[in-house]
Every structure is written in structure tokens, then in C-alpha cells.
């Protein structure tokens, strides 16, 4: 069941109708049942996997808390990590690693015959295993107490707005909201409705509309255009993936608000930043903070000197890339992001400014112009990364490398070219809409404070946009596959 399907709207209407009159405990129970139904609608067989990982981590956390001996605590934590990573490894990475190892050893004359597993990747697996695993790590670090209520914990993992594509909400943030009675406030419901509408615009108007063009372009055996026109395909993908994922996150946050929950902000204005550090503070924030807190810091962060910091950055982003998909393109995308962070850090050190500092607020037209240039340049650097990322999803005979090579050749062949305005103009229009939402992003939570007429005008416009420009073919969200 996807958010952009008719069946989901029916499901939501039923859930909300049942939800509001119930008391707190019954609400939780009903939400848990609804969340499992939501997940099972896609494939009921994987409900057992969801149940298993949830219960296993629930028990591990209780054991960790009850245990005083460090070795035993570590053992329970390791079990939790082992099981979660094991599930991920079997379903998501086994075939990739087996094939990689086989092809790496073959030139040395070693022929290994790993069996190929024909498994369907359960949707949202990476999201809920990370979510669940972070809970046991937090309990181990004594940052939060283990919950005694298994149902609360299961709801935390399976809560349907965030279940299949995040945001990856920490237990310290969501569990207390599950445990205490929720007060549903009218302004929050209003903000929720607005977020849902904005999310649908991002998904069905921007992402799915651009997605048709991107899919068609990548379905061609070679880059269908050259020069600037090839860049347009990558720009289109940049806004497709933003609209797709930010749209999902907005809908998820909006849905949660309708039920009195608050989920974390997952996207700010990722294409309006001028450096990679700022990008990762604006793009998929819940994943980047997860990687920072549980991987980068665990590896030592920046506490052990310059070179280990660079190593940690590279490793964190490499694993971040691998989290997105089992493929060499995703690994390279992760390395590319790591390299950008390292270069940015080096440059910041050279200039004597901290790498994590926010973009300075420009002053004067020269300042604005400089900022505009930096943002534009960094957007193109991001787009090069998206080429790798999109190529990872290509599934046709020539393979992902042929696609990357063909696009790079086309993008950097600076010859006179005939601009295909019939493609450039619509991509620019939809991209501009995507940029508008990023630019106005921080205003989205102020909806409830607008005047009634402004709200009415905004909602009418949103409804008209969705009606006229929306793609209603129930296209999957890109991040479902992760």
C-alpha cells in the first residue's frame, strides 16, 4: 500500500475514524494492528520478519538494561546488531557480496560457486532495522531506558507513516509519544493537512512527472541527448528524487500530526546549500544523523587526529552508500560523498573555518551573487553524484557502467548543441516548483498561523495542482527499495 494510492486514502479514513474516539491504550493497539495491516498489504509473509526483529530487539534491550556485567551487556548488544545486520545481509547484500567476491577471486584462479538466493527484498527493511537497532544501542549507552511494554515498542518500529521509508525516528523521540496520551491540537492537524498536500505535490506532481522523463531517458541504451540536454536528464532526476523522498517524508509527518505525533524533519533545502557538510544536514537528515551518531562517532569521529577523521568520514559515507542499495554504483556514490566531505573539510581547515559551520548569511548583492554561484556549483557536484545513484537503479543489458560512461561523455562533450527546449522547459518548470518548496520550506509549519483566506487560497491551489498535474499511477517511492 503506497501513500499515493486510492486504497491508502480509504485505509487512512478508516484508521482516523477509529482512532479519534479511542482511549490512549486502545489507540496504540489499533495503530499497531493498522500498521501491520499496512505492511502486510504489500506482502503478508514479511510480517513475521518485522515481528521477529521487533521482539528480538525488545528482549535484547531488556536484557542489556537488566545486566550489569559489561561483557554480557556487550554480548546482548552484539546479538541485536548481528541479527539486524544478518537479516539485512541475507535479504539485501548476500547476492551482491557473493557475486563481487566471485568476480574478485576468479582472476586469481579461485572459482567459488556461491548459491544465488532468489529473495524478494522486503520493503523498508533498511529503515526498520536501523530504527530498531538504534534502540538497543541507545539502551546500551544508557541514553534511554528499555521499555517494558512490548506493544509500545512494536508500534514504535512499525508505525505506518514512517515504516517503509522513514524518517528514521529515534526511540528517545518517538517512544515517549507512544507511551503518553496524545493531545490532538487543531493547529497541528491543520499543519498536518498542509504537509500532506505539500507532500503529494512533491510526489505526484514533481517526482512522478519528472520520473516519466527520467525513466524514459535511462531506458535508452545510451544517453539520448548530449551536452546540456544530458545535464537536463540529471537535473530532472535530482528533482525527482528530492520530490519523491521529501514528499514521502512530508506525507509521513503530516499523517503523524493528524494522530497527535510529531516525526522529525527529514529534509530542509538540500539544493540551496553550498557545501557537502551542509547538504547532509539538509538531505535525509534522519539517516545522516543516524550514521553520525552510531557509526561515525563509534568509529572515533574526529577525536583521533586528522587522517582518522578522513578515514571515518569515508567509511561512514561508504556504508551510507551501501545502505541505499547493494550495488557497486551505490558504493561509489557513498565514496563520492565521503570524498566531497573530506575535500570540504580540508578546504575548511585550510581556510581556518570549522567544516560544520552553517552557510553564512550573505550581505549585499556581491555576497548574494557569491552565494548563488557556490550553490549553483555545488548543485552540479551533487548532480554528478545523482548520476551514479540513478545508474545503480538501471536494469538493462548494458549495465550501469555503460550508462554512467555514456552520460559523462555526453555531459562533458562541449560542442555546439541544439538545445531541446521541449524537454528543458518542462524540467525547468517542475524543478522551479521543487526549488520553491525548498525555499519556502521553513514556512511550512506556520500554516496554522495564516489567515483563513490565505489558507483557503493555498489549499485550493494545491488541490488544483494535484488534480491537473498529478500522476496517479501509484508509482512506488524510490526509497521503498532501500
Amino acid at each position: 500500500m503506497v501513500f499515493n494510492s486510492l486504497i491508502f486514502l480509504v485505509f487512512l479514513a478508516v484508521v482516523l475514524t477509529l482512532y479519534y474516539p479511542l482511549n490512549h491504550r486502545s489507540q496504540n493497539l489499533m495503530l499497531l494492528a493498522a500498521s501491520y495491516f499496512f505492511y502486510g498489504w504489500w506482502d503478508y509473509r514479511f510480517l513475521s520478519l518485522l515481528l521477529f526483529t521487533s521482539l528480538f530487539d525488545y528482549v535484547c534491550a531488556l536484557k542489556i538494561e537488566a545486566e550489569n556485567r559489561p561483557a554480557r551487556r556487550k554480548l546482548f548488544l552484539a546479538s541485536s546488531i548481528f541479527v539486524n545486520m544478518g537479516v539485512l545481509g541475507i535479504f539485501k547484500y548476500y547476492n551482491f557480496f557473493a557475486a563481487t567476491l566471485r568476480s574478485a577471486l576468479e582472476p586469481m584462479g579461485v572459482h567459488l560457486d556461491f548459491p544465488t538466493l532468489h529473495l524478494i527484498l522486503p520493503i523498508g527493511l533498511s529503515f526498520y532495522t536501523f530504527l530498531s537497532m538504534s534502540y538497543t544501542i541507545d539502551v546500551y549507552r544508557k541514553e534511554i531506558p528499555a521499555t517494558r511494554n512490548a506493544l509500545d515498542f512494536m508500534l514504535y518500529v512499525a508505525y505506518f507513516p514512517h515504516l517503509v521509508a522513514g524518517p528514521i525516528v529515534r526511540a528517545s523521540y518517538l517512544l515517549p509519544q507512544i507511551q503518553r496520551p496524545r493531545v490532538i491540537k487543531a493547529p497541528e492537524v491543520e499543519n498536518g493537512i498542509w504537509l500532506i498536500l505539500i507532500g503529494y505535490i512533491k510526489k505526484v506532481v514533481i517526482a512522478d512527472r519528472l520520473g516519466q522523463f527520467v525513466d524514459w531517458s535511462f531506458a535508452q541504451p545510451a544517453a539520448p541527448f548530449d551536452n546540456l540536454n544530458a545535464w537536463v536528464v540529471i537535473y530532472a532526476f535530482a528533482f525527482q528524487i528530492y520530490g519523491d523522498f521529501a514528499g514521502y517524508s512530508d506525507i509521513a509527518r503530516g499523517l503523524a500530526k493528524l494522530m497527535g505525533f510529531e516525526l522529525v524533519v527529514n529534509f530542509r533545502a538540500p539544493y540551496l546549500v553550498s557545501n557537502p557538510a551542509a547538504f547532509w544536514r539538509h538531505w535525509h537528515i534522519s539517516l545522516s544523523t543516524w550514521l553520525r551518531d552510531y557509526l561515525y562517532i563509534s568509529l572515533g569521529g574526529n577525536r583521533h587526529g586528522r587522517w582518522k577523521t578522513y578515514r571515518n568520514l569515508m567509511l561512514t559515507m561508504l556504508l551510507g552508500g551501501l545502505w541505499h542499495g547493494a550495488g557497486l554504483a551505490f558504493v561509489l556514490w557513498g565514496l563520492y560523498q565521503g570524498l566531497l566531505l573530506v575535500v570540504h573539510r580540508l578546504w575548511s581547515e585550510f581556510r581556518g573555518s570549522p567544516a560544520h559551520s552553517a552557510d553564512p548569511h550573505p550581505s549585499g548583492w556581491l555576497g548574494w551573487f557569491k552565494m548563488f554561484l557556490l550553490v549553483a556549483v555545488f548543485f552540479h557536484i551533487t548532480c554528478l553524484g545523482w548520476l551514479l545513484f540513478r545508474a545503480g537503479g538501471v536494469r538493462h543489458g548494458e549495465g550501469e557502467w555503460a550508462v554512467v560512461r555514456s552520460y559523462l561523455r555526453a555531459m562533458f562533450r562541449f560542442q555546439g548543441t541544439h538545445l531541446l527546449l521541449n524537454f528543458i522547459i518542462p524540467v525547468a518548470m517542475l524543478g522551479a516548483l521543487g526549488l520553491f518548496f525548498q525555499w519556502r520550506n521553513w514556512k511550512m509549519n506556520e500554516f496554522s498561523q495564516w489567515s483563513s483566506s490565505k489558507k483557503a487560497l493555498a489549499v485550493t491551489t494545491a488541490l488544483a495542482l494535484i488534480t491537473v498535474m498529478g500522476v496517479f499511477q501509484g508509482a512506488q517511492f524510490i526509497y521503498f527499495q532501500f
Partner: protein
Amino acid sequence: MGSRKLIILMAGVSAAALVLYAVLGRTLAGALDVRFGHRVLQMAAGKTTDSRMFIQMRLREAVFLLTAAALIALAQFLAACWINRRTPPRLVWILSALSGFVCLNAFALLAAHTVVFWCLLFTGTGTTHNYTQYRIKWGLTREMQAPKQAVLFGSSQTRAEIDEGILNERLGTRLWTTELHFPGNQVYDMLLNLEDLPPVKVDYVICYLSEGNFIVGPQTESIKFFLNFRNLPEFYSLGGAFTHPNRSFAYGLLGNALPLFRLRDPLLDRILGSSIMNLSQEEWNQSLVPDLATRARTAVVPYYFGPNTVFQKKAFCVFAARCRERHAVLIVCCGQLNPILGRMVDPSFRAGMLAFLRGQAAQDTNIVLLEQAQMPAQTEKDYDDLTHVNTATQARFSDFIVGVLENLMQTNLPAKHGAH
């Protein structure tokens, strides 16, 4: 601005537009005709012959739309005032937004009935959305001056076989023909098109039917654009529910409830351009193998007798009855496919179609059935692909239809109301 001032302003705008048109409409149309008349005729490509009349009617429609917009804005304003007074403050914006959305749809509904609106969506021959082209021609049927009128219904095969330009060139002063094909149309779609026709006097309905109009697994777009709630009882009684894809069906009904939704494809074609909107068609074109025999082997798969065949045959009976009710003679060209494909189709499928059409023509004297033997022969060389003939064959076939229409007009065959 105070509410009273706004009401006065809106009423003033609509009144001024009406008065201006009444006083200056003809003069302005004449002046515009002198300046742009030749360009209008060039773009119309034979769809109209009177540029002055065309411009005047568009001016009238523009005034109508302006007045409608002002009145709808006024209605929205009054509704918002009423909502403000009568509903709890927290609900005001929701109801105002919904009433605004309803008003937008009301405007879309009215706009869709004017040719001037569709002309704004016209992007040129070959790139304009099919529905836009259809609507422009549909609107112009109300303005034809010839003593008799004919319409062409069917799929792109009808358009490929019969050139309305040739018909109008030869018969235009006595009989004006409007081509209202829609790609992929089957017989039920033609029925929807007939229902959709403005209340104008139509003397002849011409359609070119081949096996393709009765096949199983239709991928028709017409349902999406022409199905209305009022068609539902008939749709179900004919057995349509089991044969049509759900998405087109749902889109059709949604389009009937929300006129803005029905306009989305043509609007997007205009806003985003046809290149990006027709990528699936482009993909399909790319997937076609050049060798027609190979292509025919894939294309022939849905050519068998199934539930849709029964549905389309029932729809034909209703279609013929509706033509009779409108006093229009139904001319059915019992056509063919490219022989490369035709040879692969189960002969009993064609025989079944022929027997059915003959049976209908025998029962209903209002049907003029033109069988293959009577029509100019078509060989493989006459076709551009598996279903569409080339221009030379089109001209030959159009000449033949001119002859048929000449004969019918000479014999003055009346449409027999309720004949059976």
C-alpha cells in the same frame, strides 16, 4: 476592498463585457478578420471556411467566459462570506478551499464548452492533444452553414481512410463533414462520441469499422474523456464492466465529477509540451519492429471472439438506434486491416463481424452497409502500417465516399425514425 465594492466591480466587469460585445462585437470581428482572417483559415486547415464568423464566435465565447469568470468569482466570494458567518472559525478555511475548488471546476466545465478555450491549447498540427483537436472540431459543428451535415466517427483508421478535406472540397456547399475520430476508438466509444455531440442536425454518420473495433483487451482512451455518470446504467446493461480497464473507467467518472481533472491531459500538453507528455507513445513507437509481418504476429493476439466483442456488438445496436433517433443515416464502411495482419486473424472472427453487420443492416434500413466488394480494393502496398493506409489510398477511398454521399443525397434517403 469592501465586500460591496467587490460585488459592484464584478457585476460591472461582466455587464461591461456584454455591452461591449453587443455594441462592438461585429465591428471588432470584421477588423480582426481583415488583419488575421487569412492566418485563421491557414491554421484551421479546412475546418472552417468563414474566418469572420469564426472570429466573431470566438469573441462571443471570450465574453461569455469573462462573464462566467466574474460571476463564479462573485459566487465564491458570497460563499466565503456565508461560510465565515455560519461555520466555526476552525472550519472556515477548509470549506472556503473546497468551495474555491468547486468554483474552479465550474469554470473548467464552462470553458470546455467553448472553442476559444480549446484554441488556446492548440499547439499546431501534429502536436496538439487529441482531445483538444476533437473539442475544437466538436465545437465547430454548431457553426456550420451547409444545408446538410455529416460526421465521421471511429478510430484513427477512419481518419486514415477518409479525408474530410476532400469531402468538404467536393461537397462542402451542400454537405459539410466534420471528422470526429479518437485514437483507438471502438464501437462503444463511438456511442459515447455520438452522445457527446452538440444538439445539431446531423444527416449522415459515417464510420469505418474493421476487426480492430471488436477485439478483446481494448486500450481505448475514449472512456477516460467521454464517460459520464449518466452513461453508467447503459454501460453496465451492455456488459461493459467486465471488459474495460478500471483506470480508464475511474478516470472517466472522476473527469465527469471534476471537469478540471478531465482537462488535465490537454492542459499539461499545453503547459509542459507534447514531447514530455508523449514519452510512453514514443517508447511504444520505438518498440515497434520495422518488419510488418513480425509486428503482425504480436498484434494479432487480441483478435479473437471474447466478452468485449459481445459488448461492442451490443453497443453497435444502441449506436445505430441513436443515429436513427437523431434522424441521421448511418453509413458503415465494413473495412479491413492490412492484408498482412488480416491473413493472420482467425477467418471466423471476420465472418462473425460481417454476419453481425449484415444482420443489422437487414433489420434497419437506416443503415447503409458498404461491403469490401463495393469499396476500392486495398492491398498491402496501400498501407503505411498494419491498420493505416497511405495518402494516395486515402484520396481514392475519400473519392469513393464522396460518390456514396452524392448518391445518397440524390436519392434523398431519409433517416427512418424508429424503423425496424
